[in-house]
């Protein structure tokens, strides 16, 4: 009787498979999100954590397990994809990467299944052996190459494996430090964005959907020409760089350096001038003997000047008339397809988000304040905004920017805007304001992660804003010019050449 009741309490395989599928979906989600480096990623990590915790509690309940094992296993499984996401770009062995992904995805399912049958220890033993065998298989080619470079005859040689693992371990430690540095920078950036969002000082936007081109500079991960380097051979690291621009040529300065000091000229050139779009393979070659024995951190950086533009549509209506509409319970924007317009920014490394508050915007008399305009300039990619060189705000004629709290701006004319933008700037239709050079020289505009402006607007000429229509459609724009730096790093090991007797 007791046996029958024990059987009834065991979880069904269907439930375990269902659970496994859900966990797999979460893992994939984790991986995808973590690589995007966006503000959402922290939220997603939190959500997945809650999900894993729930699964652990479920597992304990189903298996009648009072120990902490379920929490440990599921906690580990939650961490694996996160760590993997951080280190993915440093793991170059594709089969290993694949193994980790599959293991991470299905491991909880196996644990759940074998745990319920009391065969977990057997399973883990087999699992461990399979992993070691898999790794040995994946790295056997490296091991053979290492042996050949050391003039060691293949055969039973445990020391060879030991030496190889030491060399590999050094690389791994270097990767760890590089990844930790990148993680710290990313975390700081995410914290800054989260603080901005939490304080309500963060304005969002969408990338120009009409854009068929991915504007900006994109660099693939660095690749080494050889699995192993030696002191008597040159060290070649290469990658592919793609760049796209419209309206203005793009000058990209490329630098190759090892350990932050040993620089070499990249091939084919240091400065790339891109008119529309270009794709180039870049090689960084250190001559033989330049990089000494040991582990080196190779870095390729590309710096370029870029401009991001953003606009937001707005509907402006006489304040009294709007009040009348609202009291009559009439939709003042009846028939207008896009009643809550969002900011649209051009594609590239920076996002300019904007918000103008509730639409339509009520317009009072001359001299009165209009609701404020929120602007956020945010680093979107994993590079650095080295320096902001120019920020311009375009407001419809009839409105003016008085003074932004703690920020120095000056009114300029259309002839002061970037040359390529002058054709679309009309002093009769827009008023242009720019951050002053003194303002841009402040440290906050260097290595910028996110910066929000709350811009108070004042009505100078209501008739000019409204024209002769009940609802005026106007446009607010921001242009930001900046210098952007993209870096790609990879560790390499240079081995000593030993000559056998």
């Amino acid at each position: 009787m007791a046996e029958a009741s024990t059987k009834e309490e065991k979880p069904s395989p269907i439930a375990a498979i269902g659970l496994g599928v859900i966990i797999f979906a979460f893992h994939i989600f984790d991986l995808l999100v973590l690589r995007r480096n966006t503000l959402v990623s922290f939220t997603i990590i939190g959500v997945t954590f809650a999900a894993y915790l729930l699964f652990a509690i479920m597992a304990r309940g189903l298996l009648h397990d009072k120990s902490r094992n379920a929490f440990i296993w599921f906690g580990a499984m939650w961490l694996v994809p996160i760590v993997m996401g951080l280190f993915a770009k440093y793991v170059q062995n594709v089969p290993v990467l694949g193994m980790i992904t599959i293991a991470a995805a299905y491991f909880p399912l196996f644990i759940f299944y074998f745990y319920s049958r009391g065969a977990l220890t057997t399973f883990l033993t087999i699992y461990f052996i399979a992993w070691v065998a898999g790794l040995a298989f994946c790295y056997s080619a490296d091991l053979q190459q290492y042996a050949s470079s050391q003039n060691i005859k293949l055969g039973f040689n445990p020391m060879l494996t030991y030496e190889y693992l030491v060399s590999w371990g050094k690389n791994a430690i270097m990767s760890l430090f590089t990844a930790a540095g990148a993680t710290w920078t990313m975390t700081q950036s995410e914290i800054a964005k989260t603080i901005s969002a939490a304080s309500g000082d963060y304005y969002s936007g969408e990338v120009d959907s009409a854009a068929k081109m991915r504007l900006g500079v994109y660099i693939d991960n660095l690749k080494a020409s050889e699995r192993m380097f030696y002191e008597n051979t040159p060290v070649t690291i290469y990658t592919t760089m793609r760049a796209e621009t419209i309206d203005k040529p793009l000058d990209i300065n490329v630098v190759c350096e090892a350990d932050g000091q040993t620089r070499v000229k990249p091939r084919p050139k240091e400065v790339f001038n891109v008119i529309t779009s270009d794709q180039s393979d870049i090689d960084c070659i250190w001559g033989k003997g330049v990089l000494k024995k040991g582990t080196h951190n190779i870095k390729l950086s590309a710096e370029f000047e870029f401009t991001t533009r953003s606009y937001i549509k707005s509907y402006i209506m006489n304040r009294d008339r709007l009040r009348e509409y609202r009291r009559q319970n009439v939709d003042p924007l009846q028939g207008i397809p896009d009643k809550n317009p969002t900011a649209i920014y051009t594609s590239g490394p920076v996002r300019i988000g904007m918000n103008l508050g509730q639409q339509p915007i009520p317009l009072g008399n001359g001299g009165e304040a209009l609701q404020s305009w929120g602007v956020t300039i945010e680093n979107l990619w994993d590079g650095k905004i080295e320096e902001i060189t120019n920020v311009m705000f375009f407001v419809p004629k009839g409105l003016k920017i008085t003074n932004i709290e703690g920020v120095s701006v000056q009114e300029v004319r259309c002839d002061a805007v970037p040359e390529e933008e002058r054709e679309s700037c009309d002093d009769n239709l827009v008023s242009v304001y720019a951050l002053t050079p003194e303002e841009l020289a402040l440290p906050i505009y260097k290595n910028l992660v996110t910066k929000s402006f709350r811009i108070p607007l004042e009505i100078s000429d209501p008739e000019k804003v409204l024209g002769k229509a009940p609802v005026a459609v106007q446009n607010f724009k921001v242009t930001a010019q900046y210098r952007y730096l993209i870096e790609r790093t990879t560790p390499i090991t240079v081995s000593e050449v030993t000559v056998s007797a």
Partner: protein
Amino acid sequence: MKKTIALLVLLVLVSGCQTGLFQRKDTMQLPEVNIGTQGVEPLFIQGTPPREVFEGSAFTMMVNLANLGTRDVDDGIYSLSYEQQYLYIAGQKNQGRFVVRGKSIFNPQGEERLLNFAFTTKSLGPQLQGYPVTITFNACYPYVTNAPLIVCIDTDVTGKKPGKVCTPQPQTFPRGQGAPVAVMSVETKILPHEMPNRARPEFVITIKNLGSGQVMASQLYREACSGRPLGEDAWNVVGVSATLSDSVLTCAPETIKMKQQGDTRIVCTQPEGIETRLGTYTAPLTVTLDYGYISSITTQVNIVKQ
């Protein structure tokens, strides 16, 4: 042979007959022009403006103003709202006037006016690949709803007299009267009068805006097409008058602010009353509503880089 001749004679005789089955219908029904719930309706002509235009190019937008109601509009106003940063109208103003006749038995479709606007797109500026520009067209005009109805007047307040020709009962008119503001129903009540031998007819008239636009006081329709405020008391205001046969009724209030949601009721009465000796009869009741109206339409044109 004799049979054949007899058959032919019979056929000749029968051909002169006209039966109801083969009778030709020479009469035509007059079109019902006094129904409908629309006034002047602006409509973009299909294909104009185009959905997508290149920057720096020209395009035409055609608006058809169709008077689908029964009242002539002699002094309507239109205004155009568009993003001047991206669009330019060559040699035209964004406000103008229009005249458009209403439906009649001679023109049961109502008159149509075609307005042409020649736009030129400006430069989008660098990097931007496309921009959806919004264009709104507003038509503002004075309008009148004329509702001719037949009501039953029963001066026998006590209801003792038999053999009446009609009985007063509520009437509904859901199809409108050829104007955006419609008389939805009329309820006839015959009340005792202070004077003997007289009865006082009272009509409870329900009105509603069945069109897609907004109603305002008739004298303020021009302001409605501008950006200026009209004042809170100007919106949904309708002037009401009514006549029973040739007698002008007293409507209270004469100018009513319609409810935005639901029906609005007005009471019209004949204070002097009707002599009871007239008995029970049907009489024409004409309700006239006077107001201004604004109809708007919006479209988007996507300006793209060449």
